[in-house]
């Protein structure tokens, strides 16, 4: 039986977008913690730590997120956990976001003039105090625009979790298409909902980038 596309179906789509947002938030928080660790190790004095992080970043930026999702999904069974699309999505997205945010934030940490680190060392500050009070606050200022830009990418990439069977906005769109047979309308709407979530973030990132460019051009 073919169902009509009505208000109910529209509501289902909007509610499914909640899961897209939840996934993006989980991935952003997990990736934020992971990314900070990656960025700190990537800029650490220890050569082993730096090399390990270079490899980590290259592997996760050099392979498709879809494959990372598959590996997390099928890997869970191998390591004796029950297979759960949400958990697999959280693991893969967190690792993925850690690599990208780690690389973005590495650049921001290295953009802080080295003299700042030297001055902090001369004042007798230890690594954590140096990072916490001197380097990271300055790096954070320039990190905000590219981080917001990456959040847009992450929000879009959560759509891939539909392929391992997690029901978020894109998967809900597929389900509704299969009962209403209105792919043009449904996927058009799905795209519009993504756009409504991403575009404001894009504009904010662009606005902050402009402000920063003005501040550094002076």
């Amino acid at each position: 039986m073919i169902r009509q596309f009505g208000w109910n179906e529209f509501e289902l789509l909007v509610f499914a977008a909640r899961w897209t947002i939840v996934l993006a938030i989980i991935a952003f928080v997990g990736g934020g913690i992971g990314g900070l660790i990656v960025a700190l190790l990537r800029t650490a004095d220890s050569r082993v730590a730096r090399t390990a992080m270079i490899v980590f970043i290259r592997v996760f930026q050099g392979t498709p997120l879809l494959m990372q999702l598959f590996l997390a999904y099928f890997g869970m069974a191998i390591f004796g956990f029950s297979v759960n699309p949400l958990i697999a999505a959280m693991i893969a997205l967190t690792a993925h976001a850690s690599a990208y945010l780690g690389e973005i934030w590495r650049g921001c940490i290295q953009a802080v003039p080295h003299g700042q680190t030297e001055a902090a060392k001369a004042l007798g500050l230890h690594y954590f105090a140096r990072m916490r009070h001197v380097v990271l606050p300055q790096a954070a200022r320039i990190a905000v625009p590219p981080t917001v830009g990456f959040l847009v990418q992450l929000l879009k990439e959560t759509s891939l979790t539909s392929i391992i069977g997690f029901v978020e906005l894109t998967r809900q769109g597929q389900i509704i298409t299969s009962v209403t047979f209105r792919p043009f309308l449904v996927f058009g709407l799905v795209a519009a909902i993504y756009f409504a979530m991403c575009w404001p973030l894009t504009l904010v990132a662009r606005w902050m980038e402009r402000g920063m460019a003005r501040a550094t051009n002076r």
Partner: protein
Amino acid sequence: MYSFKFAPVFANFGRLLEGAAVTLELSCGAMLLGLVISIVCAAARTSRIVPLQWIVSVYVEVIRNTPFLVQIFFIYFGLPAVGISFNPNPAALVALTINVGAYGTEIIRAGIESIHWGQVEAGIALGLKRLQIFRYIILKPALRTVYPALTSQFIFLMLTSSVVSVISATDLAAAGNDVNSETFASFETYIVVTAMYLVMSTILSGIFAAIQRVAFRYPMAR
């Protein structure tokens, strides 16, 4: 303890290689077509014709703020409803081209805007034609400036192309899905496929670096 079964995966390695060839064809095709679209759209975006600027802006913003997966669903499942239908592989090429075209437009536009107007005036003073000015004074230095951003976008495109397996295109990810469903060695299959993507992206970035050394060898303007 789980014992890994890589033998059945490597027995099907030929099929994975065929899939990898399709992935490279699709992504290289999309890169070239997308580059053309990017240059044309970036020229339109920086032109003084306002309606053109608007059309290009809408294209770029819509594509950059929606997921590729939804774009390919729309093209493959949605467009036939209005009488435009594709086979899976051409649909994948169209979707990838449209996608990378939007990102490329934004990147090249940034490059074009970094060119000083004085350069163009110098070109006019030397009596160069409009097209010559665009090609030698605007486009080439612009491409040189944004080359790293452009090529990392291209590598990202190659990785994104794995998504086209969902519309039963015959790329590497799809070959992986086939091998997986026949051998039941899921984790092993996707480890091998993932490693193949890593090799391809590494080779691709090596090729891009080589192209950069050859194409932009002249000294940097100050």
